[in-house]
């Protein structure tokens, strides 16, 4: 039972980031209150360094810590995505927290911890690690959601998120327990091996898997486990929401993917139907309810639910070896597309947000097209991307997804998918309509890092839609090495 350097190599990025976060926690104590930008910078630096390390690991495949963690193309891809999200999360927050008067160094530390939890999630090869990672990513988010205390809505958001999150965790743990009972192991590889043996209780395993699914479903905001989403997204500080919407979703899906595709592949027949229903419900409900929203944060929250539905579609054919790779690659690609679009959209929201939750109604966007053409143009790009129209990543992502779904033979689901995107066009366009076709005097702030986020996201959203080759290639390679 000795750990070799190889073991550490598997978790290098994670360890690095966690250590960085711990150091930062201490260092922050010595940074004066009015100069928390240094903390932000340090945090971003940590993420960037970790990102460098992660990228240097491209192509390496290893398991470590006795098979409890893996390093493979998949985890590298997801980790890179998570780290970028983290950096964007800091960029978006840096000026925002100052403006809202909630600037504290812990913000960045918590964010780092959360990112490290997410990364661990992507690398977990054992249900125990999954659980730990889940908690590691969630607990900082609970705190972050309530970060704007004593503002009541923020506290309420934190409280709701915490209670429901813990509730969902209960299911995960219990599910894990049942899986353990059925197979005698918590290691994903072990579960696969055990599932093949006839002595294993399929019922127990199935129930266990289903309960684990519930936990992940909660994290990624799939209907019917989504109800916390709008409230928490609305109540939490917007920068937190942006980070949460991207990061938690990526991590949740990454874990879901790994656990289901590897450990529970034998259950595919049963799970397919469940996932199908979840995806369909999520797309329909998310999009339909979004129509009626007047608050941009809530609208984007429902949009995020709806997108969880789209990504879930990629999981439906996971039991079909012929299309599994493609569909999971599609899911990964969509996650990346969504992450950028999402950060972009939220950055615009932040640009317009004012204290005391002002400037958050969609109506407040009237006249933006005239007054701040660039900002409005960027927002238009994000909205188009969310609808899935050219020339944006959203379209490419959706096409990729639908292709996988059709190839898997789930044309019905694809039809639901396109029809719900049609519905979604309605409410995304309303934002565009408000910006360009209604008159108003919106006030925005000009903040360097915020603008950076908006611009970067817009450029990535457009350029990668035209040149998606590399991202495609990376995503599909990531998947190929998963199995």
């Amino acid at each position, binding site marked *: 039972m000795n750990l070799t350097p190889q073991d550490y190599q598997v978790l290098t990025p994670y360890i690095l980031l966690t250590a960085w976060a711990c150091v930062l926690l201490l260092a922050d104590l010595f940074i004066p209150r009015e100069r928390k930008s240094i903390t932000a910078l340090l945090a971003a630096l940590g993420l960037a360094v970790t990102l460098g390390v992660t990228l240097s690991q491209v192509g390496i495949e290893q398991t470590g810590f006795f098979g409890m963690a893996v390093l493979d193309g998949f985890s590298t891809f997801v980790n890179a995505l998570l780290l970028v999200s983290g950096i964007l999360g800091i960029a978006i927050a840096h000026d925002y927290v100052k403006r809202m008067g909630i600037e504290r160094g812990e913000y960045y530390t918590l964010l780092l911890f959360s990112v490290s939890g997410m990364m661990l999630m992507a690398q977990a090869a054992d249900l125990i690690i999954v659980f730990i990672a889940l908690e590691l990513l969630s607990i900082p988010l609970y705190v972050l959601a309530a970060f704007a205390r004593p503002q009541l809505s923020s506290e309420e958001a934190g409280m709701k998120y915490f209670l429901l999150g813990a509730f969902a965790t209960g299911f995960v743990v219990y599910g894990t327990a049942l899986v353990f009972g059925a197979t005698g192991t918590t290691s994903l590889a072990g579960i696969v091996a055990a599932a093949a043996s006839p002595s294993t209780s399929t019922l127990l395993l199935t129930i266990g898997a289903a309960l684990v699914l519930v936990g992940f479903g909660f994290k990624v905001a799939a*209907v019917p486990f989504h109800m916390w989403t709008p409230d928490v997204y609305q109540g939490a500080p917007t920068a937190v929401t942006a980070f949460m919407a991207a990061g938690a979703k990526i991590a949740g899906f990454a874990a879901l993917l790994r656990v289901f595709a590897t450990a529970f592949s034998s259950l595919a027949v049963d799970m397919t139907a469940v996932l199908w229903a979840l995806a369909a419900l999520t797309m329909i409900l998310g999009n339909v*309810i979004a129509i009626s929203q007047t608050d941009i944060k809530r609208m984007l929250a429902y949009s995020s639910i709806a997108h969880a539905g789209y990504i879930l579609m990629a999981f439906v054919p996971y039991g079909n070896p012929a299309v599994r790779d493609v569909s999971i690659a599609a899911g990964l690609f969509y996650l990346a597309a969504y992450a950028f679009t999402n950060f972009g959209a939220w950055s615009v929201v932040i640009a317009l947000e004012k204290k005391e939750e002002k400037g958050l109604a969609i109506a407040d966007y009237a006249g933006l097209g005239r007054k701040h053409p660039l900002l409005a143009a960027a927002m238009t790009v994000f909205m188009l991307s969310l609808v899935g129209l050219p020339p944006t990543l959203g379209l490419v992502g959706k096409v990729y997804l639908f292709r996988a779904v059709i190839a898997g033979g789930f044309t019905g689901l694809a039809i639901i998918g396109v029809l719900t995107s049609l519905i979604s066009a309605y409410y995304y366009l309303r934002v565009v309509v408000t910006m360009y076709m209604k008159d108003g005097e919106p006030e925005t702030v000009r903040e360097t890092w915020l603008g950076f986020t908006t611009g970067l996201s817009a450029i990535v959203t457009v350029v990668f839609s035209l040149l998606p080759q590399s991202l495609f290639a990376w995503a599909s390679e990531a998947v190929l090495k998963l199995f």
Partner: protein
Amino acid sequence: MHLSESVTTGYFFLAPWLVFAPVIGLLINIIFGGRLSEKAIGTVASLASGASFVVSVLLAWSLAAGHGAAVTVPFLEWIHIGDLELDWAFRVDSLSTTMMLVVSGVGTLIHIYAIGYMHEDVRFKHDPGRFRRFFVFLNLFIAMMMILVSGDSYLMLFVGWEGVGLCSFLLIGFWYDMDTLGRPSWANSNAAKKAFVTNRVGDFGFLIAAFLMFWAFGSFQFDEVFEAAHAVAPGVIVAITLFMLIGVAGKSAQIPLYVWLPDAMAGPTPVSALIHAATMVTAGVYLITRSAELYTLVPQAQYTVAMTGAITALFAATIAVGQYDIKKVLAYSTISQLGFMVAAVGMGAFVAGMFHLVTHAFFKALLFLSAGSVILGLERGHHHAEHAHHEKKPIGKSGKSKAESGHDEHEVFDPGDMRNMGGLRKTMPVTFWLYMIGTLALAGIVPFAGFWSKDEILLDASRHYPAVYILLSIAAFFTAFYMGRQIWLVFFGEPRHEAAAHAEESKPIITVPLMVLAALSLLGGALNLPFEGFHQLGHWLEYTLHEVEAFPLNLQVAGVSTLVALFAIFLSWLIYGRNPLKAGQPDPLKKPLGFIFTGMENKWFVDEGYFAVIINPFKKLSYFLADVVDWRFWHDWFHETVIAGTYNWLSNIGLNLYADQKGIDAFANWLGTATQSLSATLRKVQTGFVRSYALSVLLGVVLILGYLIVK
């Protein structure tokens, strides 16, 4: 005769100039017309039309020199796609040159006349652009008519066919902002629209015929069609010929599509003469003659055509009896005479039909133009009278223009109403004599042109189609009668209006062309005298039509028709000549004929019938479709209420009640009633929010597990 060989000798290469000459004329007038004087504009147009005539003469001469062998002058490849090969080629044969000569000859005369007419017509002098516009349209008409008659295929014929329809529309609506009396109104433009639309109904028939032709024969080219026709089932040819008849009915104003022609009199008089009497309306007759080889294959179609013509001839003649407007009488007369021609070509008497076409062009143009002269004379008379009137009481009206004050003070004077005329033979002697010649020609009195041509038709009918013969004879009776009535009403008796009393003879530019036409009306019969050794037109057309029956004069038929005409004129003298009509007196026929005369007066209420049966239902249906079906039902109700409404309904649920909340609550309620023991507890779900979210999670768990376990 197969595909006509291209002959290099002769003037055939000039054929395209038939069309280009007038087109150049109209282009000159469009481009420079703004800077040219009225005279210059008229001269350019007349020269253009004259050039066309010269080309026609040269073509006819070349043709005669080549012993009548038809010549095709290729000009332009038009539509080539798949096995459809449509070319624009000029066909010069005896039939087409006859038409060319008539069109360009009469056309040129009318151009010249129109220079005077348009200048003199004081009613419309306020419009400075009228000359340019008028002559551009007139040249365009000549060009289109030339395309029509010179086309080498049914499709080129159709191009001209529709083109002249357009010109007819433009010229009927020439004074588009008023009615015939010069009051601001929609009347003239309505008449124009009516003409175009009615013609289009006919064109529809033509189009269908063309489609049938193409798919049956594989071509539109005359020779190829005729050649292929023998191998095709007669049923198809019947269909083709009958659909073509619809086209003929539209263009040549036959029942049931004649209704536009009387209204077409809204156009300036030269237009009525040129388009709506002499040339365009005879295009249908030309079409049937041109298709002789098709019609002769199917007797049943021929019979239908003949009957249509004969019935039209009679029907229109009866209406003419009840009209008061000098031009309306002539208009119905034209319809009636066209009926004669159609009957003739329907019976297979193509030469007779063409002969009548030519003579009719002469005398009807003469009549219309003379009527125009009468109208101008009356106008001038009215003008003088007005003037005198003003001089009597010039109180403060001097500032206003005459036309305006005329509108203000008086009932509008109608210079075309025969009830305002009377006794004009004294004031307008030249016009009177010219009109007399035209009348006698139309009535069919020996030796005027109309006699010979009409007699040939009647003769043919008496031999093969007794029903047609009887109908046409009665029509001839009415013809003579209404023309007599017109002469008595217009030229004899005492003036019934100041204007008639002051009427003035027209200037030479108007009367000289009339004299040429009068001479032609007098002598036109010589074209095809029914005596051995004559029949020139017959021989001429034989080059094209192959078998032409040439009958010698039949004294019995000729005698009967002459007697009938003379009797009718006598009858008209009894009624209108012996006791001239007084001012304000109703028509003497009104009382004895009662409702029959009312019918004639009101054109047998055909227009009203069309309104009731077709136009109003069409309008109603349109409005119904547009307003109720398309807008209120489809646009508003279906798309707004059903589609957008569902959208909104869904979102409202979301907004007001929070969709999943409601769904889950409903589900909880259901669960509550289902399992009594838990109900009390679970109902409390409704009170707490976080907990209902948790419930939602639980429900998800239950459903999933339920599914997995049950399955």
